[in-house]
């Protein structure tokens, strides 16, 4: 290995010289994982003056996209921390960007958060230093996707469900089960859509929990080889009926509007974005839904840890949390946030409805150590899911 690779610094310099993404990416790989497990901060120092944030689109708005949407400027004025932010499109892209070490804070979904912890990219968070943490719904705290071994790795942001959307003109009677996209899918052959990500395997696993109880799936993110194989079989059968997979939410909006897609997975924000008069409706099928609960995390090598803590506290405040989650289209994490959102918007996302929230299987990173607590088998990890997902798409 020594013989084949030049020293990291020279390699990085070479990559910069080459100015190609590819070379740059390989250089990232050489910087190596430093283990050692960063410790949570015990006290806060003075703010550093800048903080760089990596987030989903719509989470960090400073008025540059829309002058009316700005919750970053008040933060900058209050704390003196100038915010630079970058958005990412998929959890996997966010994970790759975090590896560059250029960011102090990331808003990560559950399918990325455990990987970030395992790769030592994020540090434990001392929630005692975040006064607004007290206002966060209890059912979002210390969950499997934002804590490890009882140590918190961040502050919950917003949450939402991957709902079933259908064209009310075509799909009748109104579906109450995911079987319209699985077992009864052939009725809408070529007009079904599904989320284009390995994490969608969990949707199939969740369906199997109800319809094939002998598989004994208790958590759709903890699948052993046999359970994964069953989910893959279901999804491979579904593949024949899929019109297209979506990951770009604008593509699925257009597809539902034009009638090319009549039934499939969706987000509430997509339903909200359809032009008026599109004959569609969303529902929570009887089997339940998968969903996401995002977490604000701090990089283990943050250059501005104090400003990072200041941001975590600010974005969890009722006002900022209300603005950010309403703009994105999801339920807020702060109990008081609904007072600051427009009328009806909290009800639309079932904010604070613990019963509704309990129906959601939040995205979690599948890992070899089964998330459902089984110790007699090894579970399939995210890499296995990724391989399986590519096989399913064929």
């Amino acid at each position, binding site marked *: 290995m020594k013989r084949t690779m030049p020293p990291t610094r020279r390699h990085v310099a070479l990559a910069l010289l*080459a100015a190609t993404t*590819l070379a740059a990416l390989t250089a990232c790989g050489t910087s190596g994982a430093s283990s050692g497990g960063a410790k949570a901060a015990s006290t806060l120092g003075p703010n550093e003056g800048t903080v760089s944030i990596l987030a989903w689109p719509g989470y960090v708005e400073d008025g540059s996209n829309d002058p009316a949407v700005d919750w970053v400027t008040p933060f900058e004025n209050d704390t003196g921390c100038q915010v630079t932010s970058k958005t990412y499109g998929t959890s996997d892209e966010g994970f790759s960007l975090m590896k560059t070490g250029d960011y102090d804070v990331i808003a990560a979904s559950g399918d990325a958060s455990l990987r970030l912890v395992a790769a030592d990219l994020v540090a434990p968070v001392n929630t005692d230093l975040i006064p607004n943490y007290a206002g966060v719904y209890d059912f979002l705290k210390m969950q499997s996707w934002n804590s490890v071994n009882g140590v918190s790795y961040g502050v919950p942001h917003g949450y939402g469900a991957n709902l079933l959307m259908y064209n009310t003109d075509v799909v009748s009677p109104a579906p109450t089960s995911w079987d319209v996209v699985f077992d009864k899918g052939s009725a809408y052959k070529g007009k079904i859509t599904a989320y284009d990500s390995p994490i969608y395997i969990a949707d199939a696993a969740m369906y199997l929990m109800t319809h094939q109880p002998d598989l004994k799936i208790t958590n759709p993110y903890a699948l052993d080889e046999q359970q994964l194989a069953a989910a893959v079989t279901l999804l491979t059968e579904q593949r024949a009926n899929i019109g297209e997979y979506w990951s770009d939410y604008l593509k699925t909006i257009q597809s539902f509007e034009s009638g090319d897609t009549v039934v499939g997975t969706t987000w509430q924000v997509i339903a909200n974005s359809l032009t008026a008069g599109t004959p569609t409706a969303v529902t929570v099928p009887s089997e339940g839904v998968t969903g996401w609960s995002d977490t604000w995390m701090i990089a283990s090598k943050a250059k501005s840890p104090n400003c990072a803590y200041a941001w975590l506290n600010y974005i969890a405040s009722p006002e900022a949390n209300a603005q950010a989650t309403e703009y994105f289209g999801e339920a807020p994490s702060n109990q008081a946030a609904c007072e600051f959102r427009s009328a009806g918007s909290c009800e639309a996302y079932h904010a604070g409805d613990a019963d509704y929230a309990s129906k959601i299987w939040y995205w979690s990173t599948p890992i070899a150590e089964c998330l459902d607590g089984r110790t007699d088998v090894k579970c399939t990890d995210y*890499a296995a899911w990724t391989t399986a997902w590519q096989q399913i798409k064929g």
Partner: protein
Amino acid sequence: MSDTAAPAQQRVPAPRQSLARRGSAFFSAHPRLRLGFLISAPLLWLGIVYVVALAALLVTAFWSVDSFTGEISQTWTFDNIVTVLTGSLYQTVTVRTVGVALLVTVIDVLIALPIAFFMAKVAGSRMQRVLVIAVLMPLWASYLVKAYAWRSVLSQDGILQWLLTPFGGSTPGYGLTATVITLSYLWLPYVILPIYAGLERVPDALLEASGDLGGKTWTTLRLVTLPLIWPAIIAGSIFSFSLSLGDYLTVNIVGGANQMLGNLVYTNVGAANNLPLAAAIALIPIAIIFGYLALVRRTGALDNL
């Protein structure tokens, strides 16, 4: 200074021995070094941007990645190459991709031949200029705009459906057919232009001579024109074939649930965070296109690019 003080002794003042002058005298005496000096900057650029990037790609394919943390481990392994060569997924997708690329190439050549012939041999000089601009025009628009335009054309409530309904037809919808249509549209200018350039170079006298000797239109085209422009056709086909092999956006936009080699590369870099496997997959189109180039090298097509 004392030299310049006594100029009378010299008819021509001795040139000052500056570094530049000495350098130029040296290069004047060594033409090969002179050439090397001149092209070193562009060569450096070419070397770093092309060769190093490609080498980095090739090397990455022999590494592996930690599935959970996503760290690349630089131990040499042939696992990725073996996976790509033996995995049924990669074979299926390779066959599909090559099939689409071949179909796109055939369609483009069939459309390009009459258009290029008209441009080169039939149209007047003014018309010729207008046609060249017309062919080039789509290249001035963004690739994405054109692909998304086809997405709306091919949609269930798109213009194609509206046009075909009276005749009992319907849009192919999103899928491989849509991919072939869109790619054929996108690469058509790249096929027309080399064939047009090739036809331009065919002397009219040869066609007339063929006619004088009793050759009918088809005989002339088959025995005189086609052999002469064959390298130009191959040159055009290299464009449509290689561009289709690497494409992933079009199939993403209008391909429905299908994927091509480019998509596998894309998901392995983006979703799977597995750069080594992506690099190994990227070697497939590289190998195919190198094979194709080796095959057509003797036709002289490469001189027509």
